[in-house]
C-alpha cells in the first residue's frame, strides 16, 4: 500500500508562532535597582524595629511558607506539573539540616545548603516519574510517595532522631553575630528569602523560563519547537526540591525542634495541601503570589485564630472556599486581582487627565 503523505493545511504552517522577544542584556543601573533595594531594606529593618518578638516570629514563618509556596510556583506555575508533596521535601530538608547540626556537629551555614541539596535527588526521582506520567497519574503518584514518606521515612529513628524528634538550635556566625533571638532570625530569613526571590525573578525572564512556559502551555508544541521537555521538567523538579528543602531547613531552626508529629503529621498531606492552597490563592504563576498567600495563611492560623483549638481547621475551611473562588473566578490569584485593579486605576486616571 502506497504511503500517502498528507500535507498539513497551509494555514497551520503559515501561522506565526508568537514568542516574546528575548529580553536583551540590561545594563545594571542604580535607578532600576533602587526600588527593589529599598523594598528589601524596609522588609529587613522595619519589622524588627517596630514590631515585638512574637510578631517577628510569626512573620518569619510567613516568609518560610512563602518559600515553600515558591517551590510550587516553579513546578506548577511554570512547568504545569502538579506536586502534592511539597511538605515531604520540607520535611526531608528540616530533618537533614537538624540532624547535620546536632549529630554531625556541622555549622548551620553548611548544614542548611547541604540539606537543600539532599532534597534534590529525592525530587529528581519524582521528576523522572513525571517524565513518564501525565497530569492525573502524576498527582496520584506524588500523593502516594508523600504517603510512603510519612509512613516509612519519617518514622525511622536514624532519620528523625531518637523518639522521632531532633532539636535544631538557631545559628550564629563565628560567635560574632548571634541569630538566637526571633528578631535576628527574622533578618536572616528575610535575606535568604530575598536571595531566592532575586534568583527567581532573574530566572523568570530567562530563556529557560520561556521554555518552561512553553512546556506548560503546550507540551507537544514545545517539543516540536525543539525544546527538550524532559530537561526542563527535571530542572523544575530539582528546583522544587531545592527550594522546599531550604524552606525546611529554615523551618527547623525557626521552630528549634523538628518532629514528625503523631496524630497530626507535621509534614503530611495536610501541610502539602496548605502550601498548594496558599500558592493558588496568592497567584501560582507569580513569584510574589506565595508570599502574599503565606502571609495570609500564617496570620490567619497563628494570630487571628490562634485562640481557638480548631483554628487550623477553620483556616482550612476558609482557604478551601477561597481557593474554589480563585479557581472559578480569578485563576491568577490575588496577584492577578491586584494587577487588574492597578491597571483599571491607571486607565481611569489616564482617561481623566487625557
Amino acid at each position, binding site marked *: 500500500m502506497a504511503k500517502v503523505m498528507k500535507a498539513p493545511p497551509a494555514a497551520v504552517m503559515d501561522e506565526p508562532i508568537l514568542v516574546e522577544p528575548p529580553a536583551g542584556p540590561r545594563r545594571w543601573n542604580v535607578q532600576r535597582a533602587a526600588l527593589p533595594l529599598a523594598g528589601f531594606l524596609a522588609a529587613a529593618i522595619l519589622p524588627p524595629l517596630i514590631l515585638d518578638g512574637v510578631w517577628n516570629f510569626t512573620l518569619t514563618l510567613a516568609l518560610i511558607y512563602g518559600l515553600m509556596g515558591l517551590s510550587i510556583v516553579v513546578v*506548577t506555575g511554570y512547568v*504545569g506539573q*502538579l506536586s*502534592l508533596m511539597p511538605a515531604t521535601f520540607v520535611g526531608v530538608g528540616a530533618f537533614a539540616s537538624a540532624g547535620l547540626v546536632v549529630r554531625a556537629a556541622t555549622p548551620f551555614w553548611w548544614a542548611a545548603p547541604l540539606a537543600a541539596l539532599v532534597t534534590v535527588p529525592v525530587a529528581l526521582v519524582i521528576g523522572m516519574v513525571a517524565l*513518564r*506520567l*501525565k*497530569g*492525573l*497519574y502524576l*498527582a*496520584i*503518584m506524588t*500523593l*502516594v*510517595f508523600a*504517603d*510512603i514518606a510519612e*509512613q*516509612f521515612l519519617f518514622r525511622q529513628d536514624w532519620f528523625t532522631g531518637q523518639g522521632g524528634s531532633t532539636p535544631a538550635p538557631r545559628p550564629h556566625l563565628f560567635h560574632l553575630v548571634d541569630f538566637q533571638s526571633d528578631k535576628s532570625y527574622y533578618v536572616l530569613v528575610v535575606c535568604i528569602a530575598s536571595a531566592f526571590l532575586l534568583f527567581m525573578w532573574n530566572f523568570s525572564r530567562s530563556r529557560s523560563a520561556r521554555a518552561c512556559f512553553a512546556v506548560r502551555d503546550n507540551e507537544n508544541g514545545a517539543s516540536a519547537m525543539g525544546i527538550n521537555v524532559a530537561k526542563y521538567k527535571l530542572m523544575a523538579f530539582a528546583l522544587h526540591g531545592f527550594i522546599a528543602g531550604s524552606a525546611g531547613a529554615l523551618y527547623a531552626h525557626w521552630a528549634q525542634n523538628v518532629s514528625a508529629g503523631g*496524630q*497530626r503529621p507535621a509534614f503530611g*498531606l*495536610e501541610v502539602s*495541601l496548605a502550601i*498548594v*492552597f496558599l500558592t*493558588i490563592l496568592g497567584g501560582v504563576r507569580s513569584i510574589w503570589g506565595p508570599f502574599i498567600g503565606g502571609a495570609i495563611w500564617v496570620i490567619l492560623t497563628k494570630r487571628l485564630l490562634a485562640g481557638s*483549638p*480548631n483554628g*487550623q*481547621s*477553620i*483556616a*482550612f*475551611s*476558609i*482557604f*478551601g*472556599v477561597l*481557593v*474554589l473562588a480563585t*479557581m*472559578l473566578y480569578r*485563576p491568577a490569584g490575588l496577584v492577578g486581582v491586584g494587577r487588574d485593579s492597578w491597571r483599571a486605576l491607571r486607565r481611569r486616571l489616564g482617561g481623566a487627565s487625557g
Partner: protein
Amino acid sequence: MIAFSPSLLAQDAANGVFLGAIFALLGIGVVLIYKSSGVLNFAHGSMAMFCTYIYFQMDSWFHLPVIVSLLIAVACGVVLGAATYLGIFRRMRNAGLLAKVIGALAVAGFLQGAAAFLWRNASQVRPPQQFSQRVVHLGSVGLDWQHIGTILITIAAGIGVIALVKYTTFGVALRATAQNRLAAKLLGVKEDRVAALAWGIGGGLAALAGVLIIPTSALTVYSMTGYMVRGFVAAVVGGFVSLPAALIGGFGLGVAQESLLATSVQSLSSVFAGLAIVVLLLLRVERFFALEQELRALEELG
C-alpha cells in the same frame, strides 16, 4: 527468603478481603465520578468522613436504629456528591485538569475543616457497628459479622453499579459522555443530569464505605484519607474508567496488603499501595480493562 505461617496468612487474607471491600467501594465511586465529569475526586475520603460523622451524630442524638442512621448517612452522601457537582464542577466542565484537581482538593480541605469545627468536641469517636461482633469460624479463619456483612454489601453494590452502567439509559448516557462528549451532547444526553447522578451515587458509596469501616477503628477527620488513596489505587487498575477492574483491584489490593502482615516483610504492608501503583502504572495495566478510546477521550477532557 520470605517466611510466612499458613494459618496466619489465611486469617490475614480474610481480613484483607474486608479491607479490600472498602477500597473497592471507594474505587467504584471514584471511577463513576471520573467517567461522568473528568474530575478525580480528591474529596472522596472527606465526603466519606463527613457522612460518617453524620451517622455518628444520628446515633448519639436520636438513638435511631443503626440501619436508619446508615440510610440517612448514605442519603447525605448522595446529596453532598450531587451538590458538589452542581455547585462547583459543573462550572469547571471545560477547565483544565489542574484546575479540576485543585478544585477537588479545595472541597476536601473545606469538608475536613468544617467537620473538625462542627465536631470539635468529638475528635476521636467510635460510631456503632451495624452487625454483631459474633465471630464465624471457617476452618482456621474467623470473621465477625461486620466483616462478612461489609463484603456482601460491597459485592452487591458493585454488581448493582456495574449493571446500572451496563443496562440502563443512565448508564448508556454515562458511557457515551465518557467516550465522546460532543457526540453525546448532540444526541441529546443531558450531561449535567448524568454527571449529577453519577456524583450522587459516588458520594453515597463513599458514605457507605465510611460508615462500614470506621466502627472497626476510630473516627477522626483524617481517618478516611488513607482509604481514599487506596481506593485511587483500585481505580488505577482500570485506568479510572473500568468499574469491574476497580472492584477486582480493591479486593486484590486489600488481600495482598494484609497478607504481607503474615510474612517476614510485614513492614512493607503500609507502603504496599505505593509500590503497587508504581508497578501498575509502569505496566500500564489499565489497557487490559478499558477501551483505548475511552482512556484517550478522558485524557483529552482533562
